[in-house]
């Protein structure tokens, strides 16, 4: 009895000493993590309530947040980012599902070939993709105005006018295959039990019914993951914006992250930029929880 309480009393310290090597193994990553992630995250929250000055910042309460929500640029950015997300996320996830289903039904060799063809554009940096789309959208010599010319349409100043610029960015995002989605769906399809389909065949289900009633429900965990992943990604849209439109014309293609970039590193309004980034985090968190609840719920 005596010894057992003794062990308990010194238990933690004893275990720490005994496992000191485990802490040494963790040390390098932990130092990096604390310095370059944990501290900056906490700092961002603090900064968002301050007016930043090089020699001592001043508390500003909710002033930054008020200023952010009152600014037209931020409202436009929020609106544009929302439209962009609402259109591109469903389009990308559904098209990944359709393409993966098509790939899944062909032979092994063909599967490998098409999987590569659809994933390849994903490995090229968004910088490259944005630069080439800007070129393809070129008014005078671009590929797209030539292609729409086949159908008798007049050339469009895709990126240069208020009412088409955001849609040009959205169309571009829809045309880039969702490589991660296709590969994940393919992997998940491979692990659906064959017996389910055999049972359905005996019951006389058509192949489309089997797809709609077995495949899609069985893929739900992947769908949830992919919806969350692409939503988070699309709220952070930046590279296309800075390289193709710079947020313009006017605020026509302003997005949240591009605005954070401008506020923080062109205007050096650190407090405001920090508040914007905390709001972005809040939005992503709320939307993720909402999607998680909805997609989990409708069993």
């Amino acid at each position: 009895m005596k010894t057992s309480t003794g062990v308990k009393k010194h238990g933690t310290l004893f275990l720490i000493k005994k496992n000191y090597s485990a802490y040494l193994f963790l040390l390098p990553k932990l130092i990096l993590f604390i310095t370059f992630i944990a501290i900056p995250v906490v700092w961002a929250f603090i900064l968002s309530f301050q007016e930043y000055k090089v020699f001592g910042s001043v508390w500003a309460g909710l002033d930054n947040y008020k200023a952010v929500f009152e600014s037209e640029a931020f409202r436009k950015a929020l609106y544009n980012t929302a439209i962009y997300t609402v259109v591109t996320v469903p389009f990308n996830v559904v098209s990944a599902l359709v393409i993966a289903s098509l790939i899944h039904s062909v032979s092994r060799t063909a599967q490998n070939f098409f999987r590569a063809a659809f994933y390849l554009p994903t490995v090229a940096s968004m910088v490259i993709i944005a630069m080439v789309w800007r070129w393809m959208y070129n008014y005078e010599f671009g590929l797209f105005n030539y292609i729409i010319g086949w159908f008798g349409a007049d050339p469009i100043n895709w990126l240069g006018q208020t009412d088409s610029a955001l849609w040009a960015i959205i169309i571009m995002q829809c045309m880039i295959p969702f490589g991660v989605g296709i590969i994940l769906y393919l992997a998940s399809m491979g692990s659906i039990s064959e017996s389910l389909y055999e049972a359905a065949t005996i019951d006389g289900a058509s192949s489309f019914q089997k797809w709609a009633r077995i495949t899609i429900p069985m893929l739900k965990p992947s769908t949830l993951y992919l919806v969350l992943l692409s939503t988070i990604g699309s709220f952070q849209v930046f590279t296309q914006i800075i390289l193709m439109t710079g947020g313009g014309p006017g605020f026509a293609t302003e997005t949240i992250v591009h605005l954070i970039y401008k506020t923080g590193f062109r205007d050096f309004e650190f407090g405001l930029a920090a508040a914007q980034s905390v709001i972005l985090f809040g939005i992503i968190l709320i939307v993720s929880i909402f999607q998680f609840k909805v997609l989990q719920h409708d069993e």
Partner: protein
Amino acid sequence: MKTTSFKMKKPIVYTLLIVFSVVSLLPLYWVFSTSLQLSNYQDEELDRPVSYVNSNPPKMYPMGIPEYFEHWKKARDAEEQNDMEQAAYHRETMSHIVDNTFSGFKTLFEKNNMGRWFFNSFYIGVVVTVGILLFDSMAGYVLAKKRFPGRNLIFWLIISTMMIPGQVTLVPMFIMIRELNLMDTHWALIFPDLSMVFGVFLMRQFMYSIPNELLDAAKIDGASEWKTYWKIVMPLAKPGLAALGIFTFMNVWNSFLWPIIVLNNSDLYTLPVGLKTLQDANLASFKLLMSGAAIAAIPMIIVFLIFQRHFVKGLTLGGVKE
């Protein structure tokens, strides 16, 4: 072959797949096609320089290819008729065509800082990848296999930050890097990249599958912790390390937002930053820009084609937990 999906007629499936993949690959094709297009090329019939990059309707493939073969044929015919002067003329034109086709790449390396940018991207990618593989596998190993006070707290602390968008840390990190006097240095890129936590999560998942018996056996044989990790754990973790390594390198190679904030000196640019300044300068032709884009894309395409297997593995490891 499983019958898990559409059972459409095969020709329809193939037609759809081919059409979709052509659409999907078109932009990359256009990068390469434009980068190799003839520009400022002396046209014989028109007797003036023409640029096929800026042409309406657009030229669908590098015009140097048909031009080259035409002159090659003419040169061969002339040689057969022993017209050496004519043959030499066509041979010379052929070399002009080759020069013109690759002129974008040449200009980038000779007049812009492309060689430097490429090297910077490459070595930063290697440094970060090696560091991440080492630190994340060490952390993942003990988080998966050791029991010690604070283990769960540390793990959840690290994982919870994975959900915070990277932009949140931009401003504080900028202030911090400035205070540390690391502005406009490669340390400003390397340190934050080394702190990415995704690999810890991935490695921990992977290390679970290593049998405890092996680790116990090593312990009984008197192997030190480090030796166990280095000689037993690391070799077994190779597939996971390969996947993590490829993704880390690709992320670093393609990273853009943070580098454009902290780098100002052209000698220090990474490739994506260099490409942006090239475009901003507004002097570069689309041929030059697409040549730059091609140079940035080629290494990733090669890496992907060689390590395709690991890409699939890495994506499914991080994505689906079954």
